[in-house]
């Protein structure tokens, strides 16, 4: 679908976003993958668009009162202050 424009985009990102400072080689005891380091700018751009549209959708749902409380097994990514202070995250 988006195949034809990607090589141009990729080249532009790689050309313009290069930084001339290498990562300190101190702790590179495993190969982080050069491709994986370069690609993260693109992945982040896609992620930004996804989050923006999801937030927009969420706001629309709130407006029309369509938001349901989900009963998930796992909580969200943020560590709450109460988790740190009261150890509520601990099962013991």
């Amino acid at each position, binding site marked *: *679908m*988006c195949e034809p424009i*990607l090589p141009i985009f*990729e080249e532009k*990102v*790689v050309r313009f*976003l*290069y*930084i*001339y400072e*290498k*990562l*300190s080689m*101190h*702790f*590179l*005891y*495993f190969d*982080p*993958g*050069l*491709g*994986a*380091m*370069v*690609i*993260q*700018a*693109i*992945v*982040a*751009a*896609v*992620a*930004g*668009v*996804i*989050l923006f549209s*999801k937030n927009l959708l969420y706001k629309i749902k709130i407006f029309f009162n369509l938001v349901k409380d989900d009963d*998930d*097994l*796992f909580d*969200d*990514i*943020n*560590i709450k202050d109460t*988790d*740190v*202070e009261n*150890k509520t*995250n*601990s*099962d*013991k």
Partner: protein
Amino acid sequence: MISKEQHSSSFRDPSGYIFIEDNILKRKILPIYFKQYHKLKNSKFFNKLFDSGLLINHKEVLVSETEIIIHPEQIPFVTYPYEWCFNQYKEAALLTLKLHKFALENKFSLKDASAFNVTFHNGKAIFIDTLSFDFYKENTPWRAYKQFITHFFGPLLLAHYHGSEVLKLTSNFIDGIPVKIIASMLPFKTKLNPFLYSNIHLLSKFEDKHNEDYKGEAKVTALSKKGQLNILETLYNFIKKLDLKEQSEWGDYYNKTNYSDDAFNLKADLINGWVSKLNAKTAIDVGGNDGTFVRRITSNLDLALVCDIDNNAVDYNYTKVKKNKEAYMLPIVLDVLNPSANIGFNNKERFSFINRIKDFAPDVTLALAVIHHMTLSGNITFEMSANFFAGFSEHLVMEFPKKDDSWVQRLLKSKGEFESHFEFYSLENFKSDYLKYYTILEEQPIKGSERVLFFLKRKNGKT
């Protein structure tokens, strides 16, 4: 074992290593990591991680100019990624993302996202590599991003599309499943999803393109912290919603067995009585399904390993463990006929299930309705299975289905003309072979069924 020698599983990170001293696992930190360690400690970030239950707790026992020794909270039984059910795998992935985000907010970064840095303790996933944190350097990408994809996101995606059995692949790829393999195994429609396209397919292309840069000429692109947080949040939200296409049917498993309610309760009461009489603190149920019989044990167990070959059954059990906050129960995916092997460098990096269970030496083993599967499906003779069980536990609760049992009949019939080979499957032969290794403490036929429950004690010298 008294030795300050580097543990054979701890050699990858030059920041330090673990060693065993007086049977206690400790961690030595080398000067190269002192700056990070002091900052993590003095900024109270370690304390925040302990209090939020994300990282295994530790106490400092020695500080000198050449080394720092810490004493981490001990984990009685470590499980590996290829022994986790789908939801355990998911939880470990979410924990890693959560940890990295929390680290970024506190000016640190998770430098290592290996799935082997996570295990299960007190009913939940916990990060066990204390030295996996480094300073966050502004505008640098996450150096463990690819590792996260190959260790966590890729295997979970494959499990979503191909079933939970795929998770076993991780035992063959100790450094994560290669991105190229992940990409090739995903259906075409994943290329149409921008999120999956960028995180898997495009990553695979980029890795291909850059993997011959032997001179290290290419430079790394800048990535703002906000950009990195966006990646983490989208990965977290996606993984959190990921499920298995194969739905678990184990909720009504016990309704499909050939037990009447009375026989079922009699069996549970007998097991509970025997285990309680032993005052057992540790147990393993080798074919524990969803943990029903372990849950009927009323004595206080510190740790019960509930194993099953079926990832869905283990998953069903794990969901219960989470909901009921059962910290003493550890569900494990285990194929008794093919337990996890020793793997990694020199075959000493990750230990076999047998090594670990022998070290753990549970007070009692439950083998309920497992023997007919081992004998008739696995061609394991009675003497071989007796030898196997006697290898790691002193007491054994064994349920023996007699030849007339409907499940035994079903297994025998499936053998066709080979059925005569299993003539030896009888209560008498079972007892005579098991008596070579065990003494019978109690023997109780379960009324209303074709099954007999044994309470056995290992003979001296038969380990």
